[in-house]
């Protein structure tokens, strides 16, 4: 169960895993997520579904190594079985025929926008993709994104590849150009999503973000993922993860993402010390 069938290194800190999960694959839709545990003692972490293959019975996830759990997962090889893998969770992206859609993916956020682009295109939308990363080596899936978009704009913060710009810059230009844009998705770090929302707001374009708040069960039981949307407390795991980006209290999300920062650091340090000890 939940065996790693394939693994790919996308960037020095980003790994892709194809997981055997036939029942999840049958139900998964763009915009939903899974919660997994790497080991029995492990924490439950949410990861947005990057792809699914109903025939092969697999779910693809893309992981950025930031803390102990993601680093440990990054070390797992083909054949390893995850301790648990639960999904599909959350509400799927509302796929409609909007017209022209712009999908902005920042860093790891490129992975979840890929299946949304594909679904939107299948539904007859004109899909413009904007993907970006801090620097060239953190960028991935450019070709794959080209295959599901009608236009693709690529940028890096430092200009080491393609255009030197934050993803919000081409987004703003697009909106200012007078081209009709019916709906925008922004997925990436919370701070990026906040600025995507700020960029589109003056133009009155519907904008959707996928909130990456801290979760435990992912089924509405604990409320760790509480966010404020339109002044109301919502649970990202069951009411989301996608919400109207203009209604989200971004500063609250940013603050709540930092709750365990010190303990996460301690866990990582302990883990790395242990690794060094095993290696020596």
């Amino acid at each position, binding site marked *: 169960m939940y065996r790693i069938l394939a693994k790919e290194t996308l960037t020095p800190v980003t790994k892709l895993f194809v997981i055997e999960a036939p029942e999840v694959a049958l139900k998964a839709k763009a915009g939903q997520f899974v919660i997994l545990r790497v080991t029995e003692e492990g924490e439950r972490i949410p990861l947005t579904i990057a792809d699914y293959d109903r025939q092969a019975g697999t779910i693809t996830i893309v992981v950025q190594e930031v803390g102990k759990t993601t680093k440990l997962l990054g070390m797992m090889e083909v054949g390893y079985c995850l301790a648990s893998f639960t*999904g599909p969770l959350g509400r799927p992206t509302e796929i409609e025929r909007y017209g022209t859609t712009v999908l902005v993916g920042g860093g790891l956020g490129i992975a979840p926008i890929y299946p949304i682009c594909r679904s939107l295109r299948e539904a007859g939308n004109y899909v413009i993709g904007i993907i970006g990363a801090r620097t060239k080596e953190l960028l991935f899936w450019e070709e794959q994104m080209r295959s599901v978009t009608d236009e693709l704009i690529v940028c890096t913060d430092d200009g080491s590849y393609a255009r030197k710009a934050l993803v919000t810059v081409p987004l703003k230009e697009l909106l200012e150009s007078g081209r009709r844009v019916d709906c925008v998705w922004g997925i990436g770090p919370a701070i990026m999503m906040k600025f995507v929302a700020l960029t589109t707001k003056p133009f009155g374009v519907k904008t959707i973000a996928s909130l990456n708040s801290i979760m*435990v*069960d992912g089924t*509405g039981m604990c409320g760790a993922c509480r966010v404020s949307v339109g002044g109301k407390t919502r649970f990202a795991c069951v009411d989301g993860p996608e919400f109207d980006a203009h209604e989200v209290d971004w500063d609250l999300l940013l603050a709540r993402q*930092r709750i*365990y920062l010190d303990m996460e650091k301690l866990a990582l340090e302990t883990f790395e010390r242990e690794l060094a000890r095993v290696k020596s």
Partner: protein
Amino acid sequence: MPKDRMQIPRQKMPTRPPEERRRSFEEVALGFDMDLALAEANRCLQCKKPSCIEGCPVQVRIPEFILALREGDMWGAVGALKDKNSLPAICGRVCPQETQCEAKCVLGRKGEPVAIGRLERFVADWERAQGVRIPELPKPSGKRIAIVGSGPAGLTAAGDLAKMGHAVEIFESLHVPGGVLMYGIPEFRLPKEVVRAEISYLEKLGVVIHTNTVVGKLYTLDELLERFDALFLGTGAGLPMLLNIPGENYNGVYSANELLTRTNLMKGYLFPKWDTPVKVGEKVAVVGAGNVAMDAARCSLRLGAKEVHIVYRRSRQEVPARAEEVHHAEEEGIIFDFLTNPVEIYGNQQGWVTGIRCIRMALGEPDASGRRSPIPIEGSEFDMPMDTVIMALGTRPNPLVFTDAVRLERTRHGTVVADPNTGRTKMERVWAGGDIVTGAATVISAMGAGRIAATDIDRYLKDSSGPWWSGQG
């Protein structure tokens, strides 16, 4: 002689001393040994018309198991106990006996009632130590039953149905079965080993458990009905209620569910050996005074809090928690602030809670629940500086399981409409029981509902000719 029996004092439960246990997740109540159990069992008057049984939601044959115990027939005691209660080691630990069986004990009229719960636990623990005997199972019926949720209702229904010869599969959303028994009730009150033993007993009966399976997401109820002859919903009341006051989303404000899940299910108290962090500050306020509030308060203490308050808008008389939990909490130094209601949570620039603003309350006329309703005293607001605030205000059924289940009728409280005599819902071949029907209640009432539904499912699978719905409404 009854008179002699009445001379025997109620035997005290040996417990870990408060000073030792307030930082430890080891079980607080240590259990009777054989001498204490026999002394306590000898107090029972073996009433001709035992009223204790009436007080038990599942009518355990109490005098019978106590008689067998004192006659040294331990397996006889086990048999009498388990005939009605499939989870006695759990009920002996978490039932509110003082409002159920023990409240009806005749000895309680003049003195103290027989410690039925402690005896129940003793017999069940004895059985577990022997290695549980698996009963002979009848010929397979060929019928398949899906149980959604593996808490007390689901486990009970599963055990009963397996013993009737049906093929039972349980679907559990979390990565371990047990529901609230695993994620909610802490180790120091209900060792997880006890729950695991009950679950492994079910597996030995042939029950198949699918963890990591969120019904409503992975399968709809209709999809399950295509594969199974009957469906039992026992998903409990897992959705936390929030305070709905300003500041409830500050960092350091938890639902009790989150604190307890991180602590118990994810073993946050073993961090960083186990990966899930849980964080409580020096001063903790728990809002609410039910069992969950007591658990959250006592967990906070064990996680390192220096000062833990229970903030409750009513008075001591109205506290809904088990008497023993309140007693243990007080022994451990939990501070009770009665007639106090939070009106606002305040915090700092970084988004962390720094305290709660409360208002003093007075008790007015009895409300719909029969309890005197608390009324705020104008102008009595005051601030309590706090590092952590935990909301333990009750829970509602989680609507996830109802995805696309339009034929399943629900009340405006979000609970499922079910006939209390059969457990049948308005959706054919779907039964429900426990907190999903009643709203947050007790382990024993959920168990009782699981048993009623199992009996009716068996009846239906043998003869489904009658009308489906004969309940009210």
